[in-house]
């Protein structure tokens, strides 16, 4: 099973469609006939392959035929020992990595700028975070990669730690020295887990940073639906040679649905085929588009575009040139403001805007024509909206004071207090801006003035804040009684 032209799941679905079996099983829409409006909306073809597990289609929780074969093809394509098809987003892949590696009380070394799914896993399993020093670029207002020295320091402080989790690349395309991180971690008996949500293309493109599997990491969570072209919510979990895939499967099954969507599974299958066969050309093209946009946006003036120039050998070991991140503070606008203007005035939707930056996702589906539009719109925004820089918050990275483990804090007795008045308390929940979904505050952390100010500023600028029980993000759940 190594012929990357094959698509076992998609082929099985296709065969089944032609077999015209009489369905007395779920889903109850029965190939769409039971829900005409939905069928019209999504198309007959789509509904006719929205099926449930059955013998010819294998079973995601216990793959023995077509899903097993499709996973084997994916593993081969990604250079992994094993690949798991995930239907709960990369969130589920990240959580499966942590849940299959850490138990309650175990220590996990990680940077603070992780995705909230990581914190979620810590709440679920009771592991304790050990944050490596996370360094930031204060000009751009973003956290950087994991420096090898900082990892060594964390391991020295916590030699009993079970694993290290690396964000590689970050949303902005910042990469760490994965090979060296793996070498050091393995020497100290730590597993290496890589949140590679934004790095699917590393496995297929040329001249891109090293992928987790190639660097020898033990597990990697790969968002096929981001740069890989599969349907939203589909994802891959990859494992290396020293990981027991049967144990990982059991962990996945703790929280994964027993009715995995075949639309998602087939999309993984077909996207993998496309990447394996055409990935090199596709990502060459993506890189060219991003390069062109980078040059053109630089020429407008005022904007700072992230590029390989950031590479410094430590906290920015490498940079993913398919990423188009633009710092907007030079024209006196917050990233989120530019994000809003692009959508409201120019009918252009970018991936996200945070306090200092916007990120335009360039992918497999882009055209030069649209890149020209984006560049021109940024040029116009500068012409029409530029203002003096004053009044913009420059983000400084402040290391958190971890008072309780995320699990202890999340399940503690809590009280809701107005965010403005939460200074000095210990948070019982997460606050983050989505996207990128990186927590500003995690459960168990001391709430400080700068954190409160960051939250209020992000709220005022119109970021979508999430994570709190209070949907208006006016109140924060804190651990009762204080600590």
């Amino acid at each position, binding site marked *: 099973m190594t012929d990357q032209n094959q698509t076992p799941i998609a082929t099985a679905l296709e065969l089944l469609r032609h077999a015209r079996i009489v369905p007395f099983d779920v889903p109850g829409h029965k190939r769409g006939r039971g829900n005409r409006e939905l069928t019209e909306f999504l198309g007959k073809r789509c509904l006719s392959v929205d099926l449930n597990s059955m013998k010819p289609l294998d079973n995601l929780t216990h793959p023995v035929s077509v899903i097993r074969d499709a996973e084997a093809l994916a593993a081969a394509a990604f250079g992994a020992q094993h690949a798991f098809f995930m239907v709960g987003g990369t969130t589920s892949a990240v959580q499966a990595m942590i849940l299959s590696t850490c138990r309650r009380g175990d220590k996990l070394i990680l940077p603070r700028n992780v995705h909230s799914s990581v914190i979620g896993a810590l709440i679920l399993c009771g592991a304790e975070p050990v944050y490596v020093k996370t360094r930031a670029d204060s000009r751009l207002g973003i956290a950087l990669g994991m420096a090898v020295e900082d990892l060594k320091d964390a391991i020295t402080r916590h030699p009993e730690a079970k694993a290290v989790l690396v964000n590689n690349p970050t949303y902005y395309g910042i990469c760490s020295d994965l090979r060296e991180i793996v070498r050091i971690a393995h020497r100290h008996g730590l597993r290496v887990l890589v949140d590679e949500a934004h790095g699917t293309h590393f496995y297929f493109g040329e001249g891109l940073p090293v992928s987790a599997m190639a660097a020898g990491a033990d597990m990697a969570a790969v968002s096929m639906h981001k740069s890989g072209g599969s349907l939203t919510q589909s994802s891959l979990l990859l494992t290396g040679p020293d990981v027991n895939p049967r144990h990982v499967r059991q962990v996945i099954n703790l929280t994964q649905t027993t009715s995995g969507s075949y639309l998602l599974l087939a999309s993984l299958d077909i996207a993998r085929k496309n990447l394996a066969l055409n990935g090199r050309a596709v990502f060459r*093209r993506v890189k*060219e588009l991003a*390069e*062109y946009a980078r040059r*053109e946006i630089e*020429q407008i*003036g005022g904007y700072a575009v992230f590029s390989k120039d950031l590479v410094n050998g430590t906290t920015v070991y490498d940079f993913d040139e398919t990423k188009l991140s633009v710092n907007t503070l030079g024209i006196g606008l917050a990233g989120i403001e530019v994000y809003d203007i692009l959508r409201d*005035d*120019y*009918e252009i939707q970018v991936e996200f805007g945070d306090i200092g930056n916007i990120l335009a996702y360039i992918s497999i589906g882009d*055209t*030069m*024509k649209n890149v*020209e*539009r984006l*560049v*021109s*719109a940024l*040029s*116009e925004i500068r*012409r*029409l909206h*530029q203002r003096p820089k004053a009044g913009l918050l420059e983000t400084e990275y402040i290391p958190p004071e971890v008072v309780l483990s995320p699990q202890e804090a999340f399940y503690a007795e809590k009280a809701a207090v107005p965010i403005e008045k939460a200074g000095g308390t210990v948070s019982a929940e997460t606050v983050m801006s989505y996207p990128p979904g990186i927590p500003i505050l995690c459960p168990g952390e001391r709430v400080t003035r700068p954190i409160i100010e960051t939250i209020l500023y992000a709220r005022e600028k119109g970021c979508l804040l999430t994570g709190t029980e209070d949907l208006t993000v006016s109140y924060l759940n804190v651990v009762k009684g204080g600590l």
Partner: protein
Amino acid sequence: MALWFTEAHTPDVRLCIRAERQIFSAESRYQRIEIFQSPQFGRFLTLDGLVMLTERDGFIYHEMMTHPAFAVGPDIRHVLVVGGGDGWAVHELIRYNGVERIDVVELDEMVVHAARGHLMHAASAFDDSRVRLFIQDGVAFVRRCRGEYDFIVVDSTGPVGPGEGLFTREFLGCCFSALKEDGILLSQMGSPYYEKSMDFVARTFSRAKKCFPIVRAYQAHVPTYPSGYWLFGFLSKKYDPVRDLQAGRWQSIGIKTRYYNTPLHLGAFALPSYINARLGIAPDMPREEGFAPTQAKRSEKFTTPRDEEATPAQEVPDEVFSPCEKQNDGISQKRNEQGESTAPPEQNRGEDFVPPSDEQEEDFAPTQDEQGEDHVPPL
């Protein structure tokens, strides 16, 4: 054998032109380019199966895309034509001795090649020493210009497809910057009759109003375009096309035109009520409100367009669409003459530019819904 070129103007309306033969046919990186010879319209050029110009009625569109600016702007010397690779707009422009430089930015070199080889006007237009041809994306070209032009002609293919970028706010805003402080821009806007097309017109019009202080729509009758009725935009920084018309001065230049004249100029800006209503124009008070003057503080150095720098490393065709492939290269349907009512449909299903095949429908225009509510004039 009679060959019929067919273009679907809506899913329910088609225009058929009998063609004697095909003169040219090629697929460029961007689109399918064809030229036919017909008894009624002479040679005609189609892009992706849509008629762009015919030798017989092309004067209407191209005169209306150029002369109105000269009758209003006092001293037009530097002109930019975005699109217009067929050369006819340039042909109109070179008739003005006062024009010193005409920059033409055409995305698709093959259009120029086809036109020079097979269409009247094109060769002489591009051979004029004042004309510089740039093969590149118009959006990128204009972005690099600052205060250079007296007049910009946006001669695009339409709001969907390769010319899509030329209807956007960012493009129009960049044109604003590329014009001198009394500059004028003329752009085709589409047919105001069929609902889907009118939607595009209204959207373009409102975008234009956000970019220019003076935005007026004007009309002309173009037999081979959908509905035979076309709108244009007059976008200007300083001069109003009606108030500032200098009829005597234009007449004294002595340009002989077949469609355009100065009384018609005034009439062209007098629009039917249903269009005024749709565009939010008060018929008695045609001046626009709602324009927020753009306080541009530009410190960058003046950038002169240079095609070498501007041409992107590589370009792959954007969504290319050829509705005619299935129809024998655009010539289709030996059809019977009778049996088709010429009356407009009772209910306008509101779709413009719809190619004949279903799957590709979306590339051209959003799929029509059942509603026929719109501003079709009473029949």
